[in-house]
Each structure stands twice: as structure tokens, then as C-alpha cells.
């Protein structure tokens, strides 16, 4: 076999590797799409519950049918998967047990039953708990079927078929699933039968768990059902994009995980090449995507939020400095020292002063800061807004003059030009005098 692609850090990839990558991406995309529903219903742990609970379904189907045929496995897992959903909901509703606790009771008990059944069944079959847990992603291309003259890994073919089923169901029920995910009560009121939709989704998840099992193992299903969806949830606020992003991130985790595992194989300890579980690496890459999104998502990321807060703080600090310097010049024709300006916020003030000086709005002489001509124009605009708002509060809300400053001090930073223009008109009409306008303290309102 010839190398198809060569990548840095990973080395040469053969068509064998590409099949594994395709399989892993397919699992990632499938679980990613279905996981969005669980995430929005706040039932993320149901993926964990189902993927454990179907174990007795698998073992039972094997014990009854005597074959490891996929159809039997799907049937057994589907039945037990839906039963898990029914029991969980039933315990929650009838016995008034919290939903997470009832889920915990149901799936652990079923899992224990499954382990026990397997230990009976395992005499003559390779239903090995280890295999169920980790899967054998690396070896999927070894088992092939011939479809249309092409030799395709069996796992890839079944996953492809599962993808078609999931896509068809999700397309047909798109509107219903969306509504049930966001507002089951409204869905019920509209006659959409949310319980039925819910169990359709549970059955799909159980089915995908089973077809994914052999290739990637249960733990990977659990991770891929929640992490890509949560990552996508950090990146968008729209449902259609959530689905697409989650599928993409899931696929990228699958592919990236396998590449990471290949990269680990290039490590050497004492001359021996290392290796690792590809399924585990897929989880790790998925977690990496999540952490990246949690930190750097433009809208919901921790760092982006910190940056926005810092930027706002700096702007407020700059505007406050301009206002203070303007008033000092107006009242006493003097400048202010850094200490006068600092007030409460230390670092922000220092940085804001540096920025203002760099923009040529303020200058420093004899340890005192003063506005430049340009700075005076900017500051008068800002102080004007402040005094307009004060006048407005006094005239329209009837606040006494000594109560308007504090309220204005907060609002002044958030008044856009259009609002300022309206305020100016309003104050002009209420004062009815020839210019100039004055604020409730009797000071002149500067600015255009």
C-alpha cells in the first residue's frame, strides 16, 4: 500500500488510516447532532445512562438469539435503551424521585445486570467488557464488507447507514424536535406529543450507541454525545448552527483523536515505540476543543468576556478622567495630579491616562494633567451628555438637583449620539430660553 497523505507530526497516512478517520468522524458527527437534543433538554447524562444500560440488552439479545448479528444487537439495545428512558421518567413522575437520581438508579442496576449476563454469555463469545468500553477504533478496517464492488470496513458501512436514518428522522421531525428541545410544555399544548418525540430521540441515541460500540466503545459515545454539543453551544445561539457546528466539531474530534494517537506512536521510550488508545485520544481532543471554546468563544468565552469587561472599564475610566479634567478647568482653571484622578481604580486609571495622552487628548506639565484643545472638545461633548441627562432627570422625573448626579454618573457612559440628540431637543424645549442651556446645578451645558 502506498502512502496517500503525509502530515507533519503524524507521518504518512495510508488508505487504512483514512478509513479509520472516516469512521471516527462519522461517529463524531452522528453523536454530535444527537447530543444537541440532550444538551438542550438538560439530559446530558442520559447519554451516559443509555450507553451503559443497553449492556443487558446486548447480552440478552445474544443469549436469546445465539448470534452476534447486528440486527439482534440493535433490537436488544433499542428495547433496553427505551426502557431506560421509560423507567427514569416513570420513577421521576410516579415515585417523585429527582430525575438525575432516578437515572442513576436505573442505569447502574441495568449495567450490573448486563455485566452479570455477560459473565454467563462470555463462555463462548468475545463480548468482552473491555472491548465494549474502549472499542477498537484502530482495527475497524480489518473487517470489511463489499458494497457495490468496493471493499468498505463493516463499521463504516453500518455507521453510514445509521447516519442516513438519523438524517432522515431529524429532517422529517426537525420542527418538532426543535420545539420539544426548547419548550416541551408548549409542544404539548400545540398537540405535538413531546413524550413520543422524546422516545424517538432516545431510540435513535440507543441505536447509534450500538452501531458505534464495536468501533469506538461506550465511553467515546458518552463523550461525543455531550462535548461537541456543549462546545457548539458556546459558539452559537442559533439552533440550526448548533446542529451543524456540533456535527463538525464531533467529526473534527474523531479525526483529530486518531491523528493524535498516530502522533503518540512516533514517541519513543527506551527505543520502544509507544502507542495509545485512539478512542481515548478522541475524548481528549474533544475536551481540548471544549476548553478552547470555553476560553476564546467570541461571545460566551471566558477570555472574551474578560476582555470586554476590561475594555469597558478602560473606556469608563477614560471618560471619567476627561470629565474630571474638564470640570477642574471650568471651576478653577487648574489641572489635576495623577493622585487626584486615580480615585478608586488604580491600574485602569494609569492605563487610561497613557491611552489619552497617546491620542493627544491630555498633556502633563508640572505634575498636573490638562486637556489639550482636542481633548477639551471631546470632554465637552461628554460633559454635555452628562448635564443633558441630569437636566432630563430633573425636568421629566422631577428628581431634586442633589439626586441627579449619582444616577447620571452611571448612565452617562451608555448614551449613544442619537439619544443625546433627543435629550438635547427635549431639554431645549423644556427650558424655552435662548441659549445657552443650563443643568440643574446652574452650570452651562457644553457641546453642540
Amino acid at each position: 500500500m502506498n502512502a496517500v497523505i503525509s502530515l507533519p507530526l503524524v507521518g504518512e497516512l495510508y488508505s487504512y488510516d483514512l478509513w479509520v478517520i472516516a469512521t471516527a468522524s462519522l461517529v463524531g458527527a452522528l453523536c454530535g447532532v444527537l447530543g444537541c437534543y440532550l444538551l438542550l433538554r438538560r439530559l446530558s447524562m442520559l447519554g451516559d445512562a443509555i450507553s451503559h444500560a443497553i449492556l443487558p440488552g446486548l447480552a440478552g439479545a445474544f443469549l436469546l438469539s445465539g448470534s452476534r448479528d447486528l440486527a439482534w444487537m440493535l433490537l436488544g439495545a433499542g428495547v433496553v435503551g427505551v426502557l431506560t428512558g421509560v423507567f427514569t421518567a416513570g420513577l421521576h413522575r410516579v415515585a417523585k424521585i429527582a430525575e438525575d437520581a432516578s437515572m442513576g438508579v436505573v442505569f447502574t442496576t441495568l449495567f450490573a445486570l448486563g455485566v452479570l449476563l455477560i459473565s454467563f454469555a462470555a463462555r463462548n463469545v468475545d463480548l468482552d467488557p473491555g472491548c465494549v468500553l474502549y472499542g477498537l477504533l484502530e482495527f475497524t478496517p480489518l473487517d470489511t464488507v463489499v458494497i457495490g464492488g468496493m471493499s468498505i470496513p463493516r463499521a463504516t458501512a453500518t455507521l453510514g447507514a445509521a447516519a442516513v436514518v438519523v438524517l432522515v428522522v431529524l429532517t422529517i421531525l426537525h420542527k418538532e424536535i426543535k420545539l420539544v428541545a426548547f419548550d416541551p410544555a408548549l409542544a404539548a399544548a400545540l398537540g405535538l406529543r413531546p413524550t413520543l418525540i422524546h422516545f424517538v430521540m432516545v431510540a435513535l441515541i440507543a441505536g447509534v450507541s450500538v452501531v458505534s460500540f464495536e468501533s469506538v466503545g461506550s465511553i467515546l459515545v458518552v463523550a461525543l454525545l455531550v462535548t461537541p454539543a456543549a462546545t457548539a453551544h458556546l459558539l452559537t445561539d442559533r439552533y440550526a448552527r448548533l446542529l451543524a457546528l456540533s456535527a463538525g466539531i464531533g467529526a473534527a474530534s474523531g479525526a483529530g483523536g486518531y491523528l493524535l494517537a498516530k502522533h503518540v506512536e512516533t514517541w519513543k521510550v527506551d527505543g520502544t515505540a509507544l502507542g495509545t488508545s485512539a478512542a481515548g485520544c478522541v475524548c481528549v481532543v474533544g475536551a481540548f476543543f471544549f476548553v478552547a471554546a470555553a476560553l476564546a468563544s467570541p461571545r460566551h468565552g471566558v477570555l472574551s468576556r474578560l476582555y470586554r469587561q476590561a475594555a469597558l472599564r478602560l473606556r469608563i475610566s477614560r471618560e471619567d478622567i476627561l470629565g474630571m479634567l474638564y470640570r477642574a478647568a471650568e471651576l478653577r482653571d487648574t489641572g489635576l495630579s495623577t493622585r487626584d484622578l486615580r480615585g478608586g481604580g488604580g491600574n485602569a486609571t494609569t492605563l487610561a491616562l497613557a491611552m489619552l495622552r497617546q491620542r493627544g487628548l491630555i498633556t502633563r506639565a508640572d505634575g498636573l494633567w490638562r486637556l489639550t484643545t482636542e481633548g477639551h472638545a471631546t470632554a465637552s461633548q461628554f460633559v454635555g451628555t452628562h448635564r443633558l441627562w441630569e437636566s432630563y432627570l430633573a425636568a421629566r422625573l422631577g428628581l431634586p438637583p442633589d439626586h441627579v448626579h449619582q444616577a447620571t454618573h452611571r448612565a452617562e457612559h451608555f448614551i449613544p449620539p442619537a439619544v443625546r440628540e433627543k435629550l438635547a431637543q427635549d431639554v431645549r424645549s423644556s427650558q424655552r430660553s435662548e441659549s445657552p442651556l443650563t443643568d440643574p446645578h446652574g452650570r452651562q451645558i457644553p457641546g453642540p
Partner: protein
Amino acid sequence: MNELLRLITLQDANTRLVLLGTGVLGLAAGVIGALAVLRRRALVGDALAHAALPGVCVSFLVFRERSLPLFLLGALVFGVLGVLTMNAIRRFTRIKEDAAIAIILGSFFGLGIALSGIIQRLPSGNRSGLDGFLFGKAAGMVRDDVTLIALASAAALLGVAALYKEFKLLGFDRAFAGSLGWRVALLDFILMSLLAIVTVVGLPAVGVVLMAALLIIPGVTARFWTDRLAPHLVLAGIFGMLAGLIGAGLSAVLPAPQSALSRGFPTGPLIVLVAGTLFVASLLFAPGRGLIARWSTARSLQRRIHDEHLLRDLYELQESASFKAGSVPAPSIGQIAAHRAWRMVPLRNAIARANALGYVTQTRGTLALTASGREKSLRIIRSHRLWELYLHEHAGIAPDHVDRDADLIEHFVTPELLAKFESQLALGDADPIRTGAAMGVPLSLHPPGASAEEAPR
């Protein structure tokens, strides 16, 4: 039989150890788990058990030594790390609690599997007994394991005893605890750390998933038996201990399945299945909260309601008939059924019960109230009509709207309440519509079988 005897008399030293270990573990896991369930963190134990795996691997990679205490130390570190990450996700991102738990579970466990994959391929590798952490091997417990379990359990239980009041408030009303100035986040973290300690020592015994079961199931089971926290915790401990003892005992007694994988009957699953059986038994049979008890309460209430409806129907039919004909005919069963749209089975059952109690006499398909039946029916009809009058006069509800409401309430009006109604409605005056015919029973606001004009005014 011989084996059972050996088990019960605890002759086998190994069995004794295993029973001690699983029993103590079940006790501690039950108590801590009950608190976690109360705090709505039931599945955190599951996530914790999974999150501990990379700790075991890292510990092996760092110390290159197969020592249980070092493994457990690594597991504990990663378990606590998992809890902290979970809290950070919840606090600093828009991701909700359930997803945070699942993310930690999947990611940490995946990392653990990747690391254990590396360890396996190391020259010195072969998974270093890591599989035991996944599935547990209670039957292979040695003295040191049991000592460790006992120490960790004692520490966890002492922690619960010391912070009982705090955990109690934390579980029931977190916001109130915060308003008292308690460091709620810190208390939460302590509770989760205690959970982590118990989980980690339990891993080698029962494995990852089944440890989660031991934490959740006893706490939920105990909830069926009591409404008070202290008995709840004690019961959860007892249920956990029973599950551990019986499960381990069964695994020692039952013949091993002839399997290539396991040498004995797997202990962990048996413990969980015993816990599950205790749960199902409590779900069904617990007094008060159990399904059967609740079902029988609902059933006897339903019967009483049917009985009272039958007596009221008879009174009302006689009343309306006497307006017309001046006599008191006995209504037929068909007439009764039509009067309230009865379904036949409950009606026949109610008639049979009334007959047995001597409230009615049945002659050729017609029913008549006996003296005692009439007396009893008067009580019910008074309750119904006084409530109607009360609604009408004090709540301003129209006469044709009060009947359904009174239908629901009449069965629950106590004699004290009736007396109150009577005094408030001042039934002593001579208004005929209010004092009515017999024994202080007011006439109906909407007499059956009579239109508004015919009503006795």
C-alpha cells in the same frame, strides 16, 4: 449447604475480610451518597468515579510503582480536580450542571483510557492492574484494602457527623445557607471531597459504574421510608451495608459461571443488584410513600367518595321526586346511574357496600335509604350545600357554578368546619331557601329536576 454454613459462621478468613470491606464501604457510600442525592448531585459520584482513572495512570507513570495507596492518592487528586473543573464550567460558562458533569466524565475518562493505552505499550507496562479499577475485584480484597476502606469510611462519616447541620441546610435550602453567611461553595466542596474519598477507595472493590450505584441507590431507597434527614442517613447507611454484605455473601456462595473471564461469581454486579432489589422492594412496599401504600390510600379514598356520592344521589332523587309527587318513591338503579353519569361497576360496588352497612334496602331493582342511611346522607348533603352556599355568599360565585366545586370538596369538610359555616351563614333565620326541610339541611341552590320558577321561593 456446607458452604452456606461456612459463610454464616464466617469460618473462611478471606470471606470475612471481603464481607467486612464491602459492608463498611456500603455503609459509608450510603450515607455520603444520600447527602449527594439530597443536594441534587446524584450523578456527580458517577463522574467522580470515572474522573479518578487518569489519576491512577498518572500515579503509575510518575512513581513507576504498583502500589494501591499511591494509586488511590492519584485517583483522589484527579477526582477533586474533576469536581473543581466541573464547578468552574458551571460558574464561568453558560454550560449547565448536567452537561458539565457529563463533560468531566467523558473527558477525564477518555484521558485515563489514552494514558492507560500508553502504559500498556510501555516496556514495563501491561496495564498494571488498571482493569481492576474499572470493573472491581472485591473477591480479591486483602487486609490492607479493608484497612484503607475502613479508614476512609471513618473519615467520611466523621466529616458528615461534624458538619451535619451545615450539610442539612445545604441540601434543603442553599440560598438560605448563603444568606446566613456560610461559605456555601466551600461546604459544597467539602461534601464533594468526602464523596471523592469514599468513591476512590471503593473503586478497586466494585469498579467505576457500580461504585456510582452504591452511592446513589441506598440514598434513594431510604427516601421511601422516612421524611427526616437523620433517619434517612442512617437508613441509607444500613441499606448500603446490607447490599454490600448480601452481595458479597451471595458471590461467595453461588457457584461460579463457567466463564473464561471471571473466576468467581462477579461481586460488584451482585452488590448492585441486591441494592436494586432493596430499592424495588421499598418502591413497592414502603409504608406511606411506597407504590402499594399510595395505591391503597387512593383506592380507599375513591371508595369513600363513591359511597358518599351514592348516598347523596339517593337523597337528591327522593327530594326532587317528593317535590313532584308528594311521595317518596325508591329510584331504580338506572335512575341513579343517569343522575351522576355513574359507570356501572363502581356503582354496583358502592351499592353492595352500602347494602352491607345497612344504609340502603334493595327491592326489585330499586333502592331506598334506610333510617341510618338517611341520617348519613344528610351529613354529606349538608356538607355539599353549605359549601355551595358559602361559595355563593362569600366568594360571589353564581349558583350554577358552585356544584362541581362542592362535589370535590364535600368529602373533606370536617365537622368543625361545618359548624363554622353554619354560624357564618346564619342559618337560623326563616329564609326557606336557606333553612330548608329537614334537620338543618339547606335546600339546593339549583334544585334538581326543577326549573328556576318551580323552586320553592
